[in-house]
């Protein structure tokens, strides 16, 4: 017993010390992929644009951690607050990949795009096609597929990225948050992630729609409040073909059933100068394609409920006739919005509603016949839009106060 013990111990000690030496050896020399957070440049936003000479320009927004740290209004805070919390670096190259890599020439540390939250795309690049950018995103394991995408209209991407935010230390986060909130509660803009665009680009019967940001007023010190995220850009495949206005975007969101709440206003039936506003919820949108004699007909059905949000005049709005009247008017407005969105889409030959995809999934044989000239068929297809509206609540009051 004892004998055995002694022998084992010797063997084990030598084994253990050998493995320990190997471990320490590797921990000192190895570590190929070991890079500390302080040795990488976190990237929060990437802008991609095409220069006039046809090369790709990539701009990174790199936050400086010590300045973005929240809740530390400490000693150096007052002095630092004048400094920008993010720095912008851009670089040009024949391809996006080369442009990204050549960025290293201008940076002290390695780039780390895994945490990028926003991808800004220039108008010229969008017209030429997004394939390259998205391929890079898909291929690179370090990229973030849930980053939001924004198209910059009528200005260089870099200019938008220079805008400063007063609410967020990192401007791109301001934009990202505003897109999400907007889609949920207002509907003038939609949310698009890289992965969504990737899927849509590849789908034969669906084209991507990307939200648009534009500069409202040119200023020396551009702020985020001076730029506006509103409307969206329709693509055919990966190429930009045209823009949808804010209301058209809302029409699209209604049909796609992606909106949670939105606000409408219409002139009061009693007094044309006064307005009544509504908050509409729970829109239940459905899309269908009906075949009439082998020709597709595009059908959109929307069910909406709503509250009365505000009235500028004190009529009792809860009377049944009154409600009916109001509901009809809202119905008209919504139908108009959806219709104009659909019309624009047909005008651009861009199937942003994914009707082709619906045919493809539900009726693959039919799709085989029409898929080659689907854009043409889509743009000429007859449409039908049905909207049902129901007003349910009126807030705390039935009737506004009558000022004397």
């Amino acid at each position, binding site marked *: 017993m004892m004998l055995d013990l002694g022998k084992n111990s010797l063997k084990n000690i030598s084994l253990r010390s050998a493995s320990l030496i190997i471990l320490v050896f590797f921990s000192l020399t190895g570590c190929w992929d070991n890079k500390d957070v302080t040795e990488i440049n976190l990237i929060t936003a990437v802008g991609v644009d095409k220069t006039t000479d046809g090369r790709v320009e990539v701009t990174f927004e790199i936050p400086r951690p010590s300045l973005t740290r929240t809740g530390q209004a400490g000693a150096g805070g007052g002095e630092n607050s004048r400094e920008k919390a993010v720095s912008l670096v851009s670089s040009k190259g024949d391809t996006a990949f080369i442009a990204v890599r050549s960025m290293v020439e201008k940076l002290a540390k390695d780039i780390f795009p895994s945490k990028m939250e926003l991808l800004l795309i220039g108008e010229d690049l969008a017209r030429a096609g997004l394939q390259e950018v998205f391929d890079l995103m898909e291929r690179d394991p370090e990229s973030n597929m849930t980053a939001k995408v924004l198209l910059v209209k009528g200005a260089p991407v870099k200019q938008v990225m220079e805008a400063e935010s007063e609410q967020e230390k990192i401007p791109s986060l301001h934009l990202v948050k505003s897109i999400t909130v907007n889609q949920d509660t207002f509907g003038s803009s939609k949310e698009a992630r890289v992965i969504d665009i990737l899927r849509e680009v590849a789908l034969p019967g669906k084209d991507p729609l990307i939200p648009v940001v534009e500069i409202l007023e040119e200023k020396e010190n551009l702020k985020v409040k001076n730029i506006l995220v509103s409307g969206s850009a329709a693509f055919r495949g990966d190429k930009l073909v045209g823009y949808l206005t804010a209301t058209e975007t809302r029409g699209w969101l209604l049909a796609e059933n992606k909106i949670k709440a939105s606000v409408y206003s219409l002139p009061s039936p009693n007094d044309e100068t006064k307005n009544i506003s509504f908050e509409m919820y729970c829109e239940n949108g459905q899309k269908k394609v009906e075949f009439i004699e082998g020709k597709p007909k595009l059908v959109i059905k929307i069910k909406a409920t709503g509250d009365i949000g505000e009235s500028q005049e004190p009529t009792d709005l809860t009377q049944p006739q009154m409600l009916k009247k109001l509901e009809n008017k809202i119905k008209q407005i919504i139908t108009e919005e959806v219709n104009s969105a659909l019309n624009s889409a047909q005008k651009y030959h861009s199937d942003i509603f994914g009707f082709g995809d619906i045919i493809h*999934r539900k009726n693959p044989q039919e799709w085989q016949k029409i898929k080659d000239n689907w854009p043409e068929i889509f743009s000429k297809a007859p449409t039908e839009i049905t909207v049902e509206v129901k007003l349910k609540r009126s807030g705390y009051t039935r009737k506004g106060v009558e000022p004397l």
Partner: protein
Amino acid sequence: MMTNVKISGYQLALLIMGFLFGSTAVLNPTAMAGQDAWLAYILAWVGGFMLIWLYVRIALINPSLTLVEILKVTFGKYLGTVIALLYIWYFLHLAALVLRDFGEHMNVTVFYRTPMTFIISCFALLIAYCLRKGLEVTGRAAEILMPYLFIFVIIIFFLLIPEYDTNNLFPFLEKGLTPVIQVAFGVLTFPFGETVTFLMIFPALYSPGQLKKVSFAAFGVMGFIILGIIVRDLLSLGPDLLTRLVFPPSLSTELTPELQLEPLISVNFLLGGWVKITVCLYAALVGIAQLLGLNDYKHLVLPLVLLAVGLAMWLYEDLFKMMDWTANVYPYYAFPLQFGIPLLILLVAKIRKLA
């Protein structure tokens, strides 16, 4: 020594589950079937049940004999030895294949600059340690470690629910049944048919009466989990992305809100791969030891592991070659070993019984 090793039914079930999970859940062999991946998988799963039934029958006819011994009994000393050598090569090849998959996956996802040899060697070291300690310890360690694998799979499955789009399941059978069956054949050989390895391990089961129940239960549970993984990838990525990606789960897990849980996929691969490689190398070692008439395989562990690492580096020049080969050549190479010879063994046994 080898005949004395005993594992419980639960441990065997966990080993089969880990073996099936292995590299399957990361490579997703059904991806080529696009939106019909689930169908191809279910077809293969049913086929897998038939294969395991075959293996269990063989094991029950020859209780307490391993595959190598069965081969010798069935085909005589010389032919049996030749076929046994073929199987030993296959087990070794399988282990090397999984090692290489593991290395490639790590190189592509997180460890871009770490040399693959280093990653593979570290893994091989772990497996050598495990093999030295024997199958009983492996079974017990599986009891502790496999729950992690299940927990990680479930976490990822539920976190991805917001990404699921049932439209991705349609159009059903767009290109007809032929491509689906082709993919199903591939999935049948990888991973289901590879369980032929367990013919070397079945004799170690403590109570042979449980064999059928245990292996079917393991096939049922792990088959269901892999189905969940395939449906998860299909629903969250869509057929188009699924067919294009090298490692689909790595991308789908990136979609989890706030966190990017990609490392969990690597860890799952590690756990599954650990079981798979250990079982494969154990089978090869026991086979060699039995052919040579030794009563302990443990001395041969280190050189064989070294050989497996060498093979892993040698087998394929690059990722493209490997993917092409596993998709197009592997099924035809493995199927005779997984189905042909076992069927022959069963037939010979039946005929002998009649005679």
